């Protein structure tokens, strides 16, 4: 991971450019209107800090951490803004800033329980009950279904994992899980600036996957997807990381799932990690279109607005986080859709905190559409 000093040229380029195009889509800036809380201002703050123009103060720390790392600023820019922010957090932690107490507890939980949510390791395995999924063993399975901490240990989110597993099973995909031995991908560590701890965890994970002879990892969590994908690319590993939506969309295209389409209007919220940061936009939409009528929000795909849950914002800045969720739900409601579909456990939980629209996981939606068809299947033409 690059350190803040290595971005000095980019920070100066932002200063030299000063276009401010990042401000228009920044969910935090558009809510709070404080210039240090958007990339042009944040880049200037980093530059000033490196120039020794001021010391680290609470406002500097706030500038670093009051950001969802959603990447909307990057959509309008050729600079690596979210990387600057991540390096900014790391810089502050290395220069004596105590981690935010909310973030420290996530990290402590990760160390003690292997997940950021203070749940025992055994909780990881609960969702697989009755599904008859084999546990990964060296040389036995090439495809690993990686559940991810959040969906695995949070009971209401288990449904999306069950749905994904059932859909894969119905299409005869052979896969295994790691059960309670599944590690955390480290996404949380990375987002809150604990880069060294992340590197260590990531290297351990790599060894585990390789010793199991895994060739492909399917995950239903966008954070895990992007983190694993980038780790594999960086280390030169041949393991392929895919998001479940990509796999399932392929299965639909190959005619391996029977789906009945309803006329219900639904809208799709692109999770930042899956869409803007992971480049997966169309496959989730194909799934929604297969099961319902898709209506788009004005801000979609690259321009999608963050739900406010990302990068530790939900834990450290709950009020702001909720405001961002409210804005996104309002946008969804304005489309006239009955249901807001998404494909990320964080987005799902976050968007559910705002009343007014039904929030549904993408693969739960699809499973429901296939289950109805059990006895009377009509292949969906779309």
């Amino acid at each position, binding site marked *: 991971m690059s350190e803040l000093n290595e971005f000095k*040229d980019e920070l*100066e*380029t*932002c*200063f*030299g*450019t*000063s*276009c*401010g*195009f990042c*401000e*228009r889509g920044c969910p935090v800036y558009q809510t709070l*209107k*404080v*210039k*240090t809380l958007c990339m*042009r*201002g944040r880049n*200037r*703050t980093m*530059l*000033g*800090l490196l*120039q020794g*123009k*001021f*010391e680290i*103060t*609470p*406002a*500097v720390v706030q*500038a670093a951490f009051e950001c969802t790392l959603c990447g909307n600023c*990057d*959509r*309008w*820019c*050729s*600079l690596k803004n979210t990387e600057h922010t991540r390096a900014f957090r790391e810089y502050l932690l290395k220069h004596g800033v105590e981690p935010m107490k909310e973030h420290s507890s996530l990290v402590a939980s990760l160390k003690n329980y292997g997940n950021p949510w203070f749940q025992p390791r055994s909780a990881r395995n609960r969702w697989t009950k009755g599904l008859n999924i084999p546990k990964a063993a060296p040389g036995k399975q090439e495809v690993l279904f990686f559940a991810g901490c959040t969906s695995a240990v949070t009971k209401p989110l288990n449904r999306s994992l069950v749905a994904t597993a059932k859909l894969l099973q119905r299409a005869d995909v052979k896969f295994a899980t790691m059960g309670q031995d599944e590690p955390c991908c480290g996404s949380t560590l990375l987002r809150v600036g604990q880069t060294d701890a992340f590197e260590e965890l990531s290297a351990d994970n790599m060894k585990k996957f390789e010793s199991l002879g895994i060739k492909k990892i399917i995950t239903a969590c966008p954070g895990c997807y992007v983190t694993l994908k980038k780790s594999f690319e960086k280390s030169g590993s041949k393991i392929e990381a895919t998001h479940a939506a990509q796999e399932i969309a392929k299965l639909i295209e190959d005619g391996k799932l029977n789906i009945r389409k309803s006329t219900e209007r639904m809208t799709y919220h692109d999770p930042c990690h899956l869409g*803007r940061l992971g480049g997966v936009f169309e496959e989730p939409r194909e799934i929604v279109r297969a099961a319902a009528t898709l209506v788009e929000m004005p801000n979609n795909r*690259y321009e999608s607005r963050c739900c406010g849950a990302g990068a530790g914002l939900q834990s450290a800045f709950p009020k702001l986080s909720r405001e961002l969720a409210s804005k996104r739900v309002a946008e969804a409601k304005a489309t006239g859709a009955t249901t807001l579909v998404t494909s990320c456990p964080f987005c799902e939980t976050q968007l559910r905190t705002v009343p007014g629209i039904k929030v549904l996981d993408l693969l739960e939606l699809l499973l429901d559409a296939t289950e109805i068809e059990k006895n009377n299947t009509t292949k969906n033409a779309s």
Partner: protein
Amino acid sequence: MSYIEELITALGKEKVLLDPSERFVYGADWSPRTPDEFEPPDVVVLPRTTRDIQRVIKIAYEHEIPVTAGGGLTGMLGGAVPIFGGIYIDTTTMNSVVEVDQRNQTIRVQAGATLQEVNDAVQPYDLWLPHQPESKWVCTVGSAIACDNDSTFGVRYGKILNCLLSAEIVTGTGEVLELGHRKAHFTSSGYKLKDLLAGSEGTLGIITEATLKLEPIPASRRVDMLVFPRMGSAVDYLNRLLKAGLCIEAAHINCKRRLRFYTHSYKQKFGKDPEIPAWAEALLAIAFAGDVEAVDMQRNYALKLAKEYEAQLVEEREIVEAWWASKYTLDFEPFKQKWPDSQKQKKFGAADPGVPVGRLEEFYHKFVQVAEKHNLEIIGMNAYLEHPNSIGFSLSCAVFVDYRNADEVRRFREFHDELSKLAVAFEGTMSTFMSDTNQKAPYLEVEHGPSLKYMRDVKRLFDPKGILNPGKKFPREVKQDERAQ
């Protein structure tokens, strides 16, 4: 009580930023300056209402503290940079839409709304605000008025003043005034004080709200590019189109060097600069907009007339589309964008003079000479038609500035000053879209002569203690107690 304590008492501490890091970011705009050349204010305030601004000004008036108001901070010459510290008013926190009158085609907004926010608000009514600088996503209504910046569609709709019906300001004494004619589209009554606001740079008052005239959104638009052997023939051609009665929506003449700056997405796509005929010296980008039939008819007639002026249509649509994306749609590829990419080593810097139409080509050659004399890399010249249905130009004479090199920044400023003064010698003006700022303040008399005294008197009428954006347009007047020392 210190003025800062009074500000906190009056506004609440959440609207007052004092931390050095928070103030620091307000200390520079888009203008060429070295990365350590930040001029931060002593305190930043985040007002929500006109009353908030009134409270700030009354405190500043009492304590004689400089007050600079700003919006998107995309000024090209430091207009909203607080060079004497003091209070910075970040108006972007005031971005509410007060009223849209669909029938009258007007909007009343707080001055911190960006031009794009205005357009987002009125688009459902099939209306738009045609004042469209390239900075429209960030540039606020108040800044557009105070800077009198440029617009892509000037030849049809003019600039912001052509859209401005009325504005609310807070003067340098804290008085709230409405200047203009409410929702009437024009007036013959009184002095047109509202017009003083265009290019006033916040030296007369802080603009807090504005009523703007909107236009119906045209159903279609066709943009073309033609190459000419000389700039003069492009000018003659445009004159001919206007004489023919065509309603041109946008017209920009680029020298051939300048085209390269605007075709970033072309380079991204093809990995090379676009090719134009070797004989071509000028490129004219031209747009027609309206109903499809009317647009096609006008475009066809314009292209027919082009033959008389040795012009050739640019057939490669990617060149035209790359230029238009840069100029108007801002439809860049994700994670790529012209601005940061083009500013990595050196940044864009410009002079913005206006000269008589017949001397455009002569001035272009002078621009090249002056840039070379100051050893600056030339980006090129762009002449925008910015007056409704007439041939008047604003000129952007642009160079690359190595902003990490203090000597080059100094040479850029000398280039800017020399070209500005030269424009007056050409019977023109020093500024057409960047205003005067502190850069032109030392020699504003070159353009205005004895009338500058009247301008100072106008300034004193609105701002008797000289607290509003001091140092801009005029050198700062020394305070009484400083004089006594």
